[in-house]
């Protein structure tokens, strides 16, 4: 069984929900990413999602855009990100790692080279924002050869028949984008999320994790009550960046982000049972 299915299976039997932090690899410094991943796991992350820096991150709001810019100033490439995962794996053989990014760096590396490099590094899943089902076929074939899950996105605008096609091809988990918009923006409507998740669940037994628009322990708890997992990105990166901008060290920035993740973890854990 893949690391992702083992992880979600375990979470399900324990009656928990997954907490998935997103950070941009190489932000605020290349050397800090791997230690930060371990600390996020220690603070309660079930899966770690690493953003691959890209010059034109079209689906990101200002907070994550700046994360990409800082990482690029540190010259972090897709090859470097895979290297980081490899180093992470030396001390953590169990926590699934998914990488999230844009098509062009993968195109440039070439699909077969990329897929085998992912497998060698210990990557478990891939989210490519600008490779919708219509375009991901050739890459997905390469990923399947090395048993890496391509994680499909479903959004509030995805029509019912499309949900059917997407879920039929999906593996690992489904990533539900909770708001129309870019990362970090918008107001999350839990009732609306719940309605959409029900529609997706009628088509698949895969776990559904929800991202975009989760800002704090309260919104994470609200979403965690209806989803199988929550993805938190902008809130963590904002917390870290603000600390650094106000004179803190990168380590202090990470301390703050890790505490936020811990509070989100307890918020999500506490919400279970209150609504079940």
């Amino acid at each position, binding site marked *: 069984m893949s690391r992702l299915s083992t992880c979600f299976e375990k979470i399900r039997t324990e009656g928990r929900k997954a907490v998935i932090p997103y950070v941009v690899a190489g932000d605020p410094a290349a050397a800090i990413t791997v230690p930060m991943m371990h600390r996020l796991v220690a603070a309660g992350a079930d899966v770690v999602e690493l953003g691959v820096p*890209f*010059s*034109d*991150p*079209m*689906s*990101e*709001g*200002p907070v994550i*855009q700046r994360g990409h*810019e800082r990482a*690029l100033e540190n010259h972090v*490439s*897709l*090859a470097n990100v895979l290297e980081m995962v490899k180093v992470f794996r030396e001390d953590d053989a169990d926590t699934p790692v998914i990488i999230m990014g*844009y*098509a*062009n*760096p*993968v*195109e*440039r*590396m070439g699909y077969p080279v990329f897929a085998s490099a992912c497998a060698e590094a210990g990557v478990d899943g891939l989210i490519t*924002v*600008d*490779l*919708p089902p*219509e*375009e991901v076929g050739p890459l997905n074939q390469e990923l399947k050869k090395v048993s890496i899950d391509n994680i*499909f*996105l*479903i*959004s*509030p*605008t*995805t*029509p019912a028949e*499309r949900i059917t096609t997407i879920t039929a091809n999906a593996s690992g988990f489904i990533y539900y*984008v909770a708001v*129309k*918009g*870019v990362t970090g*923006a*918008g107001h999350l409507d839990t009732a609306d999320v719940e309605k959409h998740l029900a529609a997706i669940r009628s088509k698949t037994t895969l776990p559904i994790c929800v991202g975009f628009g989760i800002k704090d322990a309260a919104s994470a708890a609200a979403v965690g009550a209806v989803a199988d997992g929550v993805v938190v990105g902008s809130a963590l990166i904002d917390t870290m960046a603000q600390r650094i901008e106000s004179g803190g060290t990168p380590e202090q920035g990470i301390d703050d982000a890790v505490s936020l993740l811990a509070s989100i973890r307890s918020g999500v854990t506490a919400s279970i049972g209150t609504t079940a």
Partner: protein
Amino acid sequence: MTDMISPEFFASVPDPQGRFGPYGGKFVAETLMSALADLEALYRELAVDPGFQREFDSDLAHYVGRPSPLYEASRMSDAIGGARIFLKREDLNHTGAHKVNNTIGQALLAKHMGKKRVIAETGAGQHGVASATVAARLGLDCHVFMGAEDVQRQSLNVYRMKLLGAEVIPVTSGSKTLKDAMNEALRDWVTYVDNTFYIIGTVAGPHPYPMLVRDFQSVIGREARRQSLAMTGKLPDALVACVGGGSNAIGLFHPFLADESVAMFGVEAGGLGVETGQHAAPLSAGQPGVLHGNRTYLMQDQNGQIIDTHSVSAGLDYPGVGPEHSWLKDIGRVNYVAANDDEALAAFHRWTRTEGIMPALETAHALVHAEKLAAEMTPEQHIIVNLSGRGDKDILTVASIDGIEL
């Protein structure tokens, strides 16, 4: 290639997936997929609807002022002593460039979809002005994204857009030029997708945009073909157009693609020289990749990061190019070349003084190559250059380069 050249062959692209050979496609976030599907469905219906075509043609005739003239540039042709050069006068369109052909068409689509809010990206500001113009005419709320650097160098157009009632949003991320404006427009669209129509300004972006912008701009080539036959009794020997995203070029080229005797040249921005790396010539010096919703030639580094471009002309300062051009390059139907900043500036002055036509700096790139080409040809031959826009918007840039304070 000979056996491939037929009207059917060129009409076969894009395929239903929006592909031009390996290029094109729909590389966007899931949230936009249904909006693109709706747009495509509507467009496929309207494209064959005589009522819609009449509405479009009528707007082009009475609002834009089409057909635009084909003008023989005799003094320049005589001075060169080679092929005769004819100019397709898109500068005489309402708002001063070819861009309005497309915004008229897309505004009609927005109207049919009942969208009250339109957004656009702009580089030189010509597409922004053309969008603000059609929005004013239809009473639509218009927001134009423009790189902060372009807001500076095209300040006249910024003010024009504001006078027309549009909101101009300066984009400060990345290189602060056209590509960043397009990123920001896509971010806006994904957020307000329910009530917003995105008027893309060139033959780039996700399918169906490269197809529909091409179709709207092809009026240029259809007219030029008729006018050439009427004025010279034959088809042109060569066509020349500048290529930013490639909309004025495809508009001129497309109706001639199956005419084997017609050579075609797309002129990219060579900036400080293609060999310096400081340019905006992805077809001349880039590699295929994925950006802004399509696969196409891009300026990128070895890690797949998009690199900064340079051109004196804001409208050509873009690291990508429409996917159909990538395909036309690969199959060898169109030749892509580059003209540098200083060559374009010299041509700007030369044509202004010799023909009394002040070209946009974008257009001046096409004129550079037309002059070189004409010199190698004979007076029995003729070239049509797409005079894509007028240069009034550029006079502050030209003055400052020439060290003149206004």
